[in-house]
């Protein structure tokens, strides 16, 4: 392993160089810039493959390698060595990011074909890949934070990519800012966590912190865990920092696929799993993680049922699926492997679904309203089949990949923690319920797009399949959606693969027998799917959205999350700001205003003494001399008197 570890920096290096060349090269690179971007990403993927094969050939206990590069910071007691940590966990991520990233790069070449800024787009994509790889390869929280901010910047730049020349330019820019600001709220948590870790452990590198986590007091561990959870919530669009993800769909669809579905938004889950030892030392924080995951998974699922915009429905689905991962990450070692497993399969099928959605939009002239789709299966067969694979995968139908990972999570949720069966029942039920709702909204999405007896297109629509550059990535991702789960899931291959990092999980019995869980889940999933099929494939779908029930209207508005943020955070903040403004202007400024007033008043008073008559001044002088003479005389008299007394 150590002989190829030297390649690891090139994982980050290739896309970073690509981004630098594309950004600095300017218009000169316009003609071939996109291919450079693809090549940089592909080069990373090749390196990743080499490293993976070498790692598979290495005994499991030697698979985790820390590769120190150089001393980064040396400030007082804080010494941070910049280095990369290569272990099965990070390598899984590296594989996902580079492989899916490369596919999406290829897809983007065609998707962004007509965009004048394609070169800049690829520069940002490469920047994102580099930052994401920095994030997952970091061997300390500080370097992780660098990557964390890097992906945030790339995300911001790409959400607001179309910030000029389009009718929606302004909304895009606002969406980018919203994502950026909400992510900063989470970043505060990461910074606070680092500060606490440095104060208690004296280091922020994984090698020092994670083994020491068991020795932390429970209060400290809880504080660190909750701060990390805040960071994860911001990055992964988890409740209560979830509002930005839906708006982030303003970015080009490949961006939504890569950043806001497959990779960046799962960084929070990565952070949770990476910080596993800390969470394990803090049961309260773990419980909060599970609760956040459960709430988000239901939240996203409910929102997803009402969205008519195909990308927003997928975004809600992403939120919900990451909720599953967070729930699993909060369950301890038993859940970590499934969290990452689901993350991996989700990365494939959700990227496939997004790219499929992009393909549909491409065919329909950037239309995103599913009520104006319908009957597309005949015109977009490849998209139809690959998205179908993704649909089955996310539903969790065996043997598609989602089944292997999601079922693992549901089973893990049913395992009682600390001998508390109520938790198993509550979270298990939530997971199953979420699976049923997922089945409903994904089936709705699928059949509203491809099914239906009657197309509901707008005028002059001639849908057709895109270029091979667009559908080959779809095929790859479709195959992954279909087979990846089975390949890695049967026999617990993936769990074993991650064991060196997350530790071996003792097998606990769920509160229900495993076959019963699987059966119940599948029955509910099929019921949900059947209901959606009846409503959106058999019945006619109205072109205008019906008013709907209260719940539908609420879900369309993201369950009033923006209104809640507005009321709970923005308005009080405005109030405080106004208070400060008023205080500053009316109290502080006016207060200081008294000083010049007093000065000018005294000035006006003394001004009267300046008569301009030289004789008045002379009188003043002479009077002063007189006073001084009298005083001096008195002092001498008194002093003399005293002297005489002594």
């Amino acid at each position, binding site marked *: 392993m150590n002989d190829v570890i030297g390649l690891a920096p090139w994982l980050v290096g290739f896309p970073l160089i690509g981004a630098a060349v594309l950004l600095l090269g300017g218009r000169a690179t316009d003609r071939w810039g996109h291919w450079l971007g693809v090549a940089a990403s592909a080069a990373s993927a090749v390196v990743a493959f080499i490293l993976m094969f070498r790692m598979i050939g290495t005994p499991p206990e030697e698979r985790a390698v820390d590769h120190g590069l150089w001393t980064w910071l040396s400030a007082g007691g804080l010494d941070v060595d910049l280095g990369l940590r290569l272990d099965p966990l990070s390598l899984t991520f590296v594989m996902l990011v580079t492989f899916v990233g490369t596919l999406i790069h290829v897809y983007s070449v065609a998707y962004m074909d007509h965009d004048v800024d394609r070169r800049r787009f690829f520069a940002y994509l490469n920047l994102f890949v580099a930052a994401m790889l920095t994030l997952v390869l970091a061997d300390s929280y500080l370097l992780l934070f660098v990557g964390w901010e890097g992906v945030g910047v790339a995300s911001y730049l790409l959400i607001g990519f179309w910030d000029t020349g389009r009718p929606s330019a302004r909304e895009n820019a606002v969406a980018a800012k919203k994502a950026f600001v909400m992510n900063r709220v989470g970043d505060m948590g990461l910074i606070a966590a680092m500060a606490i870790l440095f104060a208690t452990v004296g280091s922020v590198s994984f090698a020092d912190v994670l083994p020491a986590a068991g020795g932390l007091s429970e209060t400290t561990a809880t504080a660190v865990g909750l701060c990390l959870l805040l960071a994860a919530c911001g990055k992964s669009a988890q409740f209560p920092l979830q509002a930005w993800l839906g708006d982030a769909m303003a970015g080009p669809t490949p961006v939504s696929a890569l950043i806001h579905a497959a990779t960046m938004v799962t960084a929070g889950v990565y952070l949770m799993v990476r910080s596993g030892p800390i969470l394990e030392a803090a049961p309260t924080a773990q419980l909060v993680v599970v609760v956040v995951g459960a709430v988000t998974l239901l939240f996203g699922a409910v929102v997803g049922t009402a969205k008519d915009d195909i990308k927003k429905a997928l975004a809600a689905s992403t939120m919900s699926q990451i909720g599953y991962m967070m729930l699993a990450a909060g369950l301890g070692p038993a859940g970590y492997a499934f969290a990452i497993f689901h993350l991996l399969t989700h990365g494939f099928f959700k990227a496939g679904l997004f790219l499929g959605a992009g393909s549909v939009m491409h065919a329909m002239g950037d239309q995103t309203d599913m009520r104006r789709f319908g009957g597309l299966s005949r015109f977009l067969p490849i998209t139809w089949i690959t998205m179908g694979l993704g649909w089955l995968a996310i539903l969790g139908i065996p043997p598609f990949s989602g089944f292997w990972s999601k079922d693992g999570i549901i089973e893990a949720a049913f395992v009682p923690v600390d001998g508390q069966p109520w938790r198993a029942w509550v979270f298990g039920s939530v997971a199953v319920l979420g699976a049923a709702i997922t089945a409903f909204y994904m089936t709705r999405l699928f059949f509203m797009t491809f099914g239906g007896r009657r197309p509901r297109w707008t005028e002059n629509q001639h849908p057709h399949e895109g270029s091979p550059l667009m559908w080959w990535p779809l095929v790859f991702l479709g195959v992954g959606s279909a087979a990846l789960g089975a390949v890695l899931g049967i026999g617990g291959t993936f769990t074993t693969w991650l064991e060196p990092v997350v530790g071996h999980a003792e097998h606990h019995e769920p509160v229900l027998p495993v076959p019963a869980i699987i059966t119940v889940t599948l029955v509910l999933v099929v019921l949900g799917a059947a209901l959606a099929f009846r409503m959106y494939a058999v019945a006619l779908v109205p072109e205008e959205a019906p008013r709907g029930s209260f719940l539908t209207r609420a879900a369309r508005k993201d369950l009033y999350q923006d209104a809640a943020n507005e009321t709970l955070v923005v308005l009080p903040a405005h109030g405080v700001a106004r208070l400060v403004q008023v205080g500053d202007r009316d109290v502080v400024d006016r207060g200081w205003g008294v000083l010049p007033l007093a000065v000018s008043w005294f000035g006006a008073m*003394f*001004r*009267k*003494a*300046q*008569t*301009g*008559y*030289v*004789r008045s001044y*002379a*009188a003043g002088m*002479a009077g002063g001399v007189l006073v001084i003479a009298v005083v001096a005389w008195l002092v001498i008299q008194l002093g003399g008197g005293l002297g005489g007394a002594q």
Partner: protein
Amino acid sequence: MDVTNYVVLAAVLFAIGATTVLLRRNAIVVFMGVELMLNATNLAFVTFARMHGDLTGQVLAFFVMVVAAAEVVVGLAIIVTIFRTRRSASVDDVNLLRG
């Protein structure tokens, strides 16, 4: 008769000179008041020189005279200039520099 009487005389003359400066408006008379004050101090100097048997007092009186002569030359030149431009020798007319 005491030599102190001379000093008292000097003090009285000085006070009269000062009062002249304060009360008269003709710049030339004001100037005369200043000269009277200078002469009064000279008398005191000379008296003290005699009292202490030290010629330094007389030397200082001498210097005062010389400086007073120089001052008179410049001061009167200023008065002449002002009179030439403003047709007035009253110190109250030159009061533009006021608050």
